[in-house]
């Protein structure tokens, strides 16, 4: 065996050993974390959202090789499942969400969901980005462009705000999921300004206040 082959063999051995150590270590999920958590999720463990994929690592490798070689119809998750809205709902499901996901599966919203991907939590809330919301502040226009409020309680009526397309003002009074224990402002002058809202949607302070109608569960039950 020449020196080159020896070095390659040792390198291969060390690489495989490192991979094996990472795979069996409880720290491997942290090592694989692709980015900062959404504000409020910092204290969660990885397995709060990522459930273990069925089967052993050997079965998963076997199944994926079978899939790649055409002996299986579908691949399987390796290690952990990719979270979806059901995983979010395990902690955040509420009976009175102002914008529940299932409503956007309705045919009338076919155009709207091309603009706002509200049929899944992940359409607006991307994890490991370090932000609360990844969409802009004007998405309300996708559904509420024909808004009519009789006996409008706001000093500048909604019909004027809609006609003037002042969509960045919506979140100044209304929190999207309606989970804050508060009343919406009645004067537009009291609305949170767009910079405050943008900052909050990113990772800034919460202008709506901390009190929630339905607090999220701290960990997957």
């Amino acid at each position: 065996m020449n020196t080159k082959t020896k070095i390659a063999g040792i390198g291969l051995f060390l690489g495989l050993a490192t991979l094996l150590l990472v795979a069996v270590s409880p720290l491997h999920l942290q090592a694989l974390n692709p980015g900062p958590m959404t504000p409020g999720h910092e204290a969660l463990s990885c397995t709060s959202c990522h459930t273990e994929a069925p089967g052993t690592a050997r079965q998963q490798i076997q199944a994926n090789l079978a899939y790649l070689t055409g002996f299986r119809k579908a691949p399987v998750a390796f290690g952990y499942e990719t979270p979806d809205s059901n995983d979010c709902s395990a902690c955040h499901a509420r009976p009175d969400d102002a914008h529940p996901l299932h409503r956007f599966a309705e045919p009338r919203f076919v155009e709207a969901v091309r603009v706002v991907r509200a049929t899944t939590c992940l359409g607006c809330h991307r994890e490991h980005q370090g932000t609360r919301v990844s969409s802009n502040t004007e998405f309300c226009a996708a559904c509420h462009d024909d808004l009519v409020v009789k006996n409008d309680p706001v000093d500048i009526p909604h019909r004027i705000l809609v006609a003037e397309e002042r969509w960045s003002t919506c979140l100044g009074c209304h929190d999207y999921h309606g989970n804050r224990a508060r009343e919406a402002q009645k004067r537009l002058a009291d609305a949170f300004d767009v910079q405050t809202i943008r900052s909050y949607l990113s990772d800034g302070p919460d202008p709506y206040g901390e009190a929630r109608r339905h607090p999220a569960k701290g960990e997957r039950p």
Partner: protein
Amino acid sequence: MMRQVIIALLLGVAAIYLFVTAPPPLPETARAQAPQTSDLPVKVLLDAANLVNAAARKIYTERIVTPGQQVGLVFGEDWQEAHSKTGPLPALFLRKVAAELQAQGAPLALFLGSDQPISPSNAFKGEQVRHFAALKEDRKPRYFDMPALRLQVALYPDIAAAPGCVSCHNEHPNSPKTDWRLGDVMGATTWTHPRAAVSDRELRQGIAQVYAAVERAYAAYLEKVRRIPDPPSIGSAWPGREGRRLPDAETFMSAVKEATAAQILDAAVLLR
């Protein structure tokens, strides 16, 4: 030469590890498994689902809300607010049934819409407008598919059946139409399903999910009622002549099943 031998040995060990000594292969996921025989048009399931929901809403409206109001029970739009002492109005009962269907992960989905809704977000848009206009003319269901959503859609007329429907919509401050009359087509119940055909098992499972959603929605109302001051007694009696009472979930569901069993048997089992 040595290198090739080592690689071949490594591959051989890996193959033995993965395939010869490995535990049994993982089963295919339900979606990838060979499809069951799906020879029933989804219309059968949608019709049956609508039958159950329509009966539940009729019973809820005529035997809970209307007589309940006469004995002091209150129903409102804010029933899910923590401070509210009300129960769901009939349309919101349907909304709760829809949410409970979704919570079960059912492929079936339920919505309520109109061309004159109290909330603009419930107004039909796009293709639904045309189908609803036709439905208003002959009061017959409409079935169509929406390829963009990969959904089969059915619209069923939603007819003003109780005085409360008419008075509530006529008197509501945000109602765009204030001259509703009994018997008017006030809107349409929309059902969707992702496939054009279902298996016998999926049909039975879908119907069971609708019954379960109705039961859970009614149970949520009872749960709310138990938290209000001086709650009505909950048991086997209905509100009205028997006083300020509410049927328990079992009694309510018995009434729903009694009202639907024969038609479900015909439509979904005997396929008549």
